[in-house]
């Protein structure tokens, strides 16, 4: 009997010793089944609702203002996104730039627009008409009809898929948001019981973390010695947590599971950011407001952590609800920020240069018909987002292994059009977990990696 027990224990111990080295940080036993197409992806949630008319259709004022006010000077077409799209700029009634009345377009940063480097999916079906639903749909690869605002996404996000099925660590996945409003701070993980916080992404809302609030409550954090002070502090904390473990083991705590080393790296990064902010040296595109600042901090994160996936939320163009002139300027400024970002990655972050795939897609489109609000500057009509035109968006993709091809999905929207939620499975495909995501049962039934549509 004793011999039998000994053999049993010895076998289990040997098996454990053999398997243990293959257990990934996420607790997953095996590496993902797919191969990586590129080690880094940057997904930009390009703005809060963009009409295809002003972006990929390059119709400028002709179908936004001239249709409703047939003054010949408003019948102007042209491209106001020179870094992202190929096409000539408007030649008259220029109000989308900077300077007096916005009459000076910002000089393009990229000599070759991203469209000419990669692929544009011109007519993509946005499956949600609101900002929160639309944005988290990009992350979940699906939409949930019962999804309320101010509540975590109901099904797993791309961050959780990557961490649970791909074994990516917490600092491999980042979400950089532009505001605390519109449920944006809830994007970094779902509330799903099998995924949730422990597989979530790291996140900053830089305007707050490194803004006035951060100056008051985060900037002057005491620097403790990692071994002599922090290590015993964590040890005592873990002891205290043990007595409470039965109440917190069901994933109720909103903590994304950075290791102590990762936490130290993030704290050092935060300290550096406050120092750079004081010195005025935080990376920032030369022009633009909050969106530019958000993109700048995202570049700082990329430079430090070289994440597998970085998701950036910008939404300056959402001003279109009440000010069309500002909407045009915000689109143009966001294009400038994206051009700056793509150039910076290729020239200033050696680990990511030529190793990154860029994807940009809006959360939703905007209405065909204007609302009654006129802006003061040009008497331009404003647009909300709720009708069929709101479903029309685009997806732009470029980078490693993506060669330039003619535009895809150029016809009118149909049941076979790509979905903007394809962004999630495309990211998963690039990073090697396509099959795991497809077999999870959480994606839209028509979800397909855009790379498979090339």
């Amino acid at each position: 009997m004793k011999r039998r027990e000994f053999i049993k224990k010895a076998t289990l111990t040997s098996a454990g010793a053999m398997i243990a080295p293959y257990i990934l940080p996420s607790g997953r036993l095996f590496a993902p089944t797919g191969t990586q197409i590129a080690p880094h992806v940057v997904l930009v949630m390009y703005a809060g609702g963009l009409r295809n008319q002003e972006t990929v259709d390059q119709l400028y004022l002709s179908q936004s203002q001239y249709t409703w006010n047939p003054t010949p000077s408003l019948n102007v077409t042209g491209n106001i996104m020179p870094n992202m799209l190929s096409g000539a700029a408007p030649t008259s009634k220029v109000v989308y730039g900077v300077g007096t009345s916005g009459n000076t377009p910002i000089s393009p940063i990229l000599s070759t627009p991203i469209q000419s480097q990669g692929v544009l999916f011109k007519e993509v079906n946005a499956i949600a008409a609101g900002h929160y639903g639309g944005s988290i749909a990009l992350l979940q690869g699906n939409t949930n009809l019962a999804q309320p605002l101010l509540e975590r996404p109901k099904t797993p996000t791309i961050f959780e898929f990557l961490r649970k099925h791909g074994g990516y660590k917490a600092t491999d996945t980042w979400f950089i948001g532009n505001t605390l409003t519109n449920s944006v701070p809830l994007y970094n993980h779902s509330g799903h019981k099998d995924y949730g916080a422990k597989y979530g992404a790291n996140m900053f809302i830089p305007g707050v973390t490194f803004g006035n609030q951060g100056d008051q409550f985060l900037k002057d954090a005491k620097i403790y010695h990692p071994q002599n002070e922090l290590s015993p502090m964590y040890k005592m904390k873990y002891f205290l947590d043990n007595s409470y473990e039965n109440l917190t083991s069901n994933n109720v705590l909103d903590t994304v599971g950075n290791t102590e080393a990762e936490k130290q790296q993030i704290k050092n990064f935060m300290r550096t950011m406050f120092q750079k902010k004081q010195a005025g040296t935080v990376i920032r595109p030369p022009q633009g407001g909050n969106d530019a600042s958000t993109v700048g901090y995202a570049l700082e994160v990329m430079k430090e952590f070289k994440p597998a996936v970085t998701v950036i939320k910008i939404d300056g163009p959402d001003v279109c609800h009440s000010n069309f002139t500002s909407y045009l300027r915000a689109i143009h400024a966001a294009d400038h920020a994206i051009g700056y970002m793509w150039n910076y990655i290729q020239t200033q972050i050696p680990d990511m240069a030529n190793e990154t795939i860029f994807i940009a897609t809006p959360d939703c489109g905007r209405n065909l018909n204007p609302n009654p609000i006129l802006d003061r500057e040009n008497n331009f009509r404003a647009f909300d987002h709720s009708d069929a035109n709101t479903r029309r968006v685009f997806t732009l993709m470029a980078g490693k292994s993506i060669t330039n091809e003619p535009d895809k999905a150029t016809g009118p929207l149909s049941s076979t059009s790509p979905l903007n939620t394809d962004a999630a499975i495309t990211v998963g495909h690039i990073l090697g977990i396509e099959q795991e995501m497809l077999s999870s049962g959480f994606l839209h039934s028509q979800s397909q990696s855009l790379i498979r549509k090339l």
Partner: protein
Amino acid sequence: MKNAYKYLVFLSICAVSYQCKKDKLEDTIFELNEVKLYPSASAKLKEKTESQWIAVVYTNLFQQALSAGDIYRAGQCITSIGDKELAREVIISNFMNSTSPLPVIPSDADMRGNIDKFISDTYERFLIRRPTEGEKQYFRNEITNNPTRSAEIIYFSFALSNEYLFY
């Protein structure tokens, strides 16, 4: 008539004895509610909101209240960071570095002068309960066996503990 007189006398005695009832010191002077200690950690089931946590940790560390506006702004800092535990850690570190006001932490000499009292006081201050014998022994060993273990670091671990997130 005689019964009515007796009844009035009885009522007067009741009224006088009610007025003479001694108020508790904390009720009359500080207008504070009496806080009952939890019998054990498992009695806490509700998670504190970010604002509640901020308000309580500030009061525990500084023995004074944080303004409503500051509680709101500190809460925004936690909301803006993905790893909430890391956010709380940085905020506690920030509080520990404060020069005005200074955090109210026993000196290491006081802590080592009466280790058992320090442990009990710390459990009551942060976790609103008394330590178990096992917990007392653990911290007794920590403090006794590690000459550099400071009260500040022990306070830090309590403020960052999971139990401290619940009430």
